[in-house]
């Protein structure tokens, strides 16, 4: 009898708790501060997200998320085992198992709430970081447009100078009695080395795979990533709603079980009713006897 009273109290508390348990553990210290240089924009766009994910995987938030995932898997396993065993027992044992299932579900909802909070924190941080990168990419793009004319002029000058470089070298050799300068000697050597390295880069299979990572393509890719992250955040919001319904079902289940236990507790006896004494006429009997 005492055990059943205790059960009722516990179940009632589960019901009440499950309504207000949603975000809890995730409000602890775990966080992710992207520790990436803005030079990440120099990477080919395809590698941008990879670098961000790699940085996240080193954070405390990632560790916490992994821990919650593991706990969730264990919790689901336990609930499934209990649900399988539920049909094999009857009476008080069956109620005890159902109680444990409700406890397990409560923990599951709690953990799922934590997981959603952690995921939301991850996605919000990622979104803010991507927006920061986007602002930088736009600034770079604007500056690139400003300097594009100058770049073009410089490229023209360089190609023009390159086309007459050997003629200039011959001319200097013929007309000047002085020794070749130290810079000139190194310049020739380095220029040849640069040309060789450039041709190797051009021929490298990964070079064509990456394509050219201009400011615009980076901005486009960042835009895609921002949209995808915002979509993920919207999914998290929907998942929170699902979790809310789960918590409500859990509360209803707990109330149903409490009601059942209550019925068994009085075992067919008339359940004492509550009389309403709010109006003076309701308490009339007290004065008549």
């Amino acid at each position, binding site marked *: 009898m005492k055990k059943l009273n205790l059960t009722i109290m516990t179940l009632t508390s589960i019901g009440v708790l499950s309504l207000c348990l949603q975000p809890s553990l995730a409000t602890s210290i775990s966080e992710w501060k992207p520790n990436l240089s803005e030079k990440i924009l120099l990477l080919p766009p395809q590698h941008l997200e990879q670098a961000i994910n790699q940085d996240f995987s080193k954070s405390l938030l990632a560790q916490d998320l992994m821990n919650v995932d593991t706990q969730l898997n264990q919790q689901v396993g336990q609930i499934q085992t209990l649900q399988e065993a539920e049909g094999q027992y009857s009476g008080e044992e069956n109620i005890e198992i159902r109680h444990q299932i409700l406890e397990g579900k409560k923990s599951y909802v709690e953990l799922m709430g934590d997981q959603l909070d952690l995921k939301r924190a991850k996605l919000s941080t990622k979104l803010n970081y991507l927006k920061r990168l986007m602002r930088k990419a736009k600034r770079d793009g604007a500056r690139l447009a400003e300097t594009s004319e100058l770049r073009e002029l410089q490229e023209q000058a360089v190609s023009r100078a390159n086309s007459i470089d050997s003629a200039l070298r011959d001319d200097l050799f013929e007309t000047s*009695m002085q020794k070749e300068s130290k810079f000139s000697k190194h310049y020739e050597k380095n220029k040849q080395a640069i040309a060789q390295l450039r041709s190797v880069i051009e021929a490298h299979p990964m070079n064509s795979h990456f394509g050219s990572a201009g400011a615009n393509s980076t901005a486009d890719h960042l835009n895609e990533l921002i949209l995808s992250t915002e979509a993920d955040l919207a999914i998290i919001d929907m998942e929170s709603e699902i979790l809310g319904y789960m918590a409500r079902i859990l509360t209803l289940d707990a109330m149903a079980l409490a009601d059942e236990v209550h019925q068994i507790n009085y075992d067919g006896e008339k359940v004492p009713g509550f009389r309403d004494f709010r109006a003076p006429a309701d308490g009339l009997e007290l004065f008549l006897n």
Partner: protein
Amino acid sequence: MKIKTLLIVAITATILPQLSIAGSLENLERERALTVMEMIDGKLSAEERWQRLSAAKRRLADLERIVLNDKKLRSKTSNLVKRSFQSFELTFLAHASVENQSSIQGHWFDQVGMSTDDLMSTRVSK
């Protein structure tokens, strides 16, 4: 007096960054100015001028290569840098003279509009 000081400070603040950003270009401009002075220096004999100009051409060629390969200049939006690259013929004297198959002196005179005929047709007057 205060206004004068303020004006000097403002002008210096405007000019100094332009000068400091054009490090390699400034060196080239300085060398080019010295070369032009040697070209028009009336005190030099023909042989002295030839010797000095061939040495200057070597120095100019090196400085021009430095400017052409200066990556820092690519991100600058200064008019000084832009103008220099716009007038390849005058900025890169050593390269342009070889391209035009003429001496550095002849090339410069040609670019500033002083041909042999023009010079021959001039007369000294007081």
